[in-house]
């Protein structure tokens, strides 16, 4: 069975990424004051933030990172996102480079519009299989080399999706 759980707690933003409320970013008729992280379109460098989570005890396989949020503008062009990770066991140093990035993008916006909920998933390919109980340090971002949008993405959740044992 596929499970997913939120890992957005403790999200540490890059400079240029900021927290806000949906109604402060969108012109809503029906106000919504939920918290969101504003991910602006990158303009020269990858732009996102970092987070850490613990691999669930019932983890088996197929790790996927899921960004959920609200589109802040008429969607067009390419939304490109990336993630880099580092799995650490107790006794392993965090002063180690992240592994190579995994990426995802979307350029088909049929059926999507401003102010709509949206989700994009990145298949993670750790160099060593995830082990239950270990810490995963993760950096996620809008990928400057791929993303050609000019609008913000309002991230309301970040999920770790996987197949249970």
């Amino acid at each position, binding site marked *: 069975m596929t499970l997913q759980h939120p890992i957005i707690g403790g999200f540490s933003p890059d400079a240029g990424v900021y927290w806000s409320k949906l109604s402060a970013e969108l012109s809503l008729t029906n106000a919504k004051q939920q918290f969101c992280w504003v991910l602006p379109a990158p*303009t020269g460098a990858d732009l996102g933030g970092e987070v850490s989570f613990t691999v669930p005890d019932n983890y088996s396989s197929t790790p996927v990172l899921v960004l959920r949020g609200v589109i802040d503008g008429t969607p067009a062009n390419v939304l490109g996102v990336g993630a880099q990770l580092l799995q650490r066991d107790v006794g392993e140093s965090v002063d180690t480079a992240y592994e190579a990035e995994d990426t995802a993008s979307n350029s088909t916006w049929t059926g999507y519009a401003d102010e709509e909920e949206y989700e994009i998933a990145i298949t993670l390919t750790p160099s060593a299989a995830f082990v239950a109980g270990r810490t995963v340090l993760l950096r996620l971002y809008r990928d400057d080399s791929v993303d050609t949008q000019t609008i913000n993405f309002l991230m309301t959740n970040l999920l770790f999706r996987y197949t249970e044992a």
Partner: protein
Amino acid sequence: MAALVDADFQAIRNIVRSEPAQWAAFKVWSMSKAQYRAAFQAMETWFVDGVTARPATSLKAALEAAIGATLTIAQVKLIGYAWAGWRFAAKL
């Protein structure tokens, strides 16, 4: 001709972002990142060159050539006013 850099494009965007009505107009535009950069670079070039020589084309024509798409008068004004807001705040 001054070439705008990444920080300039971000600053212009923040200027637009700070004005709700302008940001709302910008968000529905569907302009790509490349078009956005070409537009403001063309705006910068048109103004700087125009200081000492009559521009060969109208601002609207220059922006349309840079972006590769037809613009409405409102869109031309949005680019011009955003550029002016950035220029005034950043460079004076």
